C-alpha cells in the first residue's frame, strides 16, 4: 500500500549491516539553500512500486528494493525537480542500478559512494540507498543546484 506521509511523520527504517537506522532521506524546505520541498513524501513498498514507476519497477525489484520515497522540489521558485530515494536490501543492489543506468555521457561526481551527473539529473548511491534527482528544465545553474540538493540528501542517509 502506498503511504503518503507528511514531512513530520515520513520515517523509514533501513537495515545497514546489523544496525537498524531510522532515516527520513528527503530534506525539508530550506535545508538546502534555495530548495523548497513542494509535495508530501510518498512512500512505496516494493510490491507497490509499479504504481509509481510501472514498467521500471521490475529492475529495482530484481535488485532488491525494499521501499522508495519520493518528493517534488522547487529551486528558487523556478526550477522543478523530483527526488527518488530507493532503499535497497544491500549496497550491491544500489550499485547494480547505478551501473546499469550509466549508458554514457555522464560525469563522475563525488556524492555518496559513487555518483553520476548529467545536465538535468544526478544519480548516486550510498550504502543501500540509490538516489535519483531529476530536473524538468535545463538552466545554466541546474547542474550545480542539483548537486547541492544531492549533497543535502546524502547528508541524511
Amino acid at each position, binding site marked *: 500500500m502506498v503511504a503518503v506521509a507528511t514531512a513530520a511523520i515520513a520515517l523509514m527504517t533501513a537495515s545497514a549491516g546489523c544496525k537498524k537506522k531510522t532515516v527520513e532521506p528527503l530534506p525539508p524546505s530550506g535545508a538546502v539553500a534555495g530548495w523548497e520541498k513542494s509535495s508530501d513524501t510518498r512512500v512505496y513498498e516494493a510490491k507497490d512500486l*509499479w504504481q509509481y*514507476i*510501472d*514498467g*521500471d*519497477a*521490475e*529492475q529495482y525489484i530484481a535488485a532488491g528494493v525494499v521501499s522508495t520515497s519520493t518528493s517534488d522540489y522547487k529551486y528558487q521558485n523556478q526550477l*522543478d525537480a*523530483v527526488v527518488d530515494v530507493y532503499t535497497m536490501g544491500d549496497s550491491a543492489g544500489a550499485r547494480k542500478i547505478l551501473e546499469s*543506468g550509466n*549508458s*554514457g*555521457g*555522464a560525469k563522475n561526481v563525488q556524492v555518496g559512494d559513487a555518483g553520476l551527473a*548529467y*545536465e*538535468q*539529473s544526478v544519480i548516486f548511491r550510498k550504502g543501500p540507498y540509490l538516489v535519483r534527482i*531529476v*530536473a*524538468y*528544465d*535545463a538552466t545554466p545553474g541546474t547542474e550545480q543546484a542539483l548537486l547541492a540538493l544531492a549533497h543535502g540528501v546524502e547528508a541524511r542517509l
Partner: protein
Amino acid sequence: MKSRREFLKEAATGAVLLGSSAAAEKLAFAGMLEPHVAAGKSKVVIARDASLHGAGAQPDEQRVLNLLDKAMAAYTGRDKPLEAWKSIIPADILAGKTIGLKVNGLGGRGISTHAALTLAIAERLQQAGVRAGNILVWERDARSLAACGMTVNTDASRVRCYGNDVGDYEDQPVQCGATQIRLAKILTRECAMVINLPILKDHEMAGVTFSMKNMYGVVDRPFLLHANNCNPGVADLNTIPAVRAKVWFTIGDAISSVYDGGPGFRPERLWYPNALVVGEDRVALDHTAWQMIERQRATAGVQSLEAVGRRPDYIATAADTAHRLGTNDPGRIRLVEV
C-alpha cells in the same frame, strides 16, 4: 481570441453532425477481423513541425493545433479540420456519446502526453459537435493526469478529466492470455469510443511503448502483463473485445520522446521528434514507432533494442493469426510523412 483553456471551460452544445459510415463499420466489425489488415495497406501518417518547441520546454499551443490539423488532413484526405474529424468519428458518437482521450502520464512530468495536444483535440471535437461533457480525458489516476498537465474535473458541463481511481474497475475479471485482469469502467461503461494518445518512449521491458502498450493503463494490475518483455501481454490485452472495439484511432504524441532509459523521464536521453503519428492500425503504428526509436538510438550511438535484449516482439505477436490486430509488414504499411 480565446485561449484553449478558456475554450474548454465552456460547455459546447454543437449540432448533430454527419459521421462516417466507414467508421461505423469499423466499430461493427471490430472484434471479428481488423479491417485494416483485410483492406490492404494500413495508412500511418507522421506529421512534423521542426519549430514546435521554439525556445521553451513546452511546445507552442498554436503550432500543436496546426500540426494536429495537418496530420488529420493527411490521414483523412480532407483539408478542413472539422470535415476531417467528422470523417473519423461515427455520427452517433458525435451526437451524444462519450469519447475518451486516453493519455499517458506514467513517465511523470517531462515525458507524458502533452496538454497542448490533448486540449487541441478536445477543441476540435467540440467544434465538430461533441458536447464538452462528453469528452473524458482519462488516465490511471490523478497523479498521472497531473503529469500530463491535466486537472481532475468531474463536472459534466465541461470537458471531464479523471482517472481509474475515480472511475474504478469492473468487479468481474476478464481473461487476458494466461492471466486475469479487471478493466477500467471508464472503458467498459462510459466511453463509446476512445482516442488513444500515447507518448512515444523506450521501455525497459517492452522495448518500445506507444499505441498498444498504452492500454496497460486500462487494467487494474498492469504488472501482471510484463512477463517476457510484455509478450504476448500487449497483444493479448489489445484483443480483449472492449479494447479492440472502442480503441481504434490513435493520435500518438511524438513531440518529445526518450530513446533509452524509459519509460520514466530521462532528460539525458530526451529527444524531440516534433511529430504526431496518426493511424488506425495499432500494429502498423507500433512498428513505425519502433523504427523511429531505432533510428534515434543509432543516431545517438546507442545499441539497437535487439542488441540489448529488448526487441519489441509483441508487435509481431499482435500481427499473428492468433491476434490479427494489424500488420507489421512494411510492405503493407503506407507511411505518409508530411
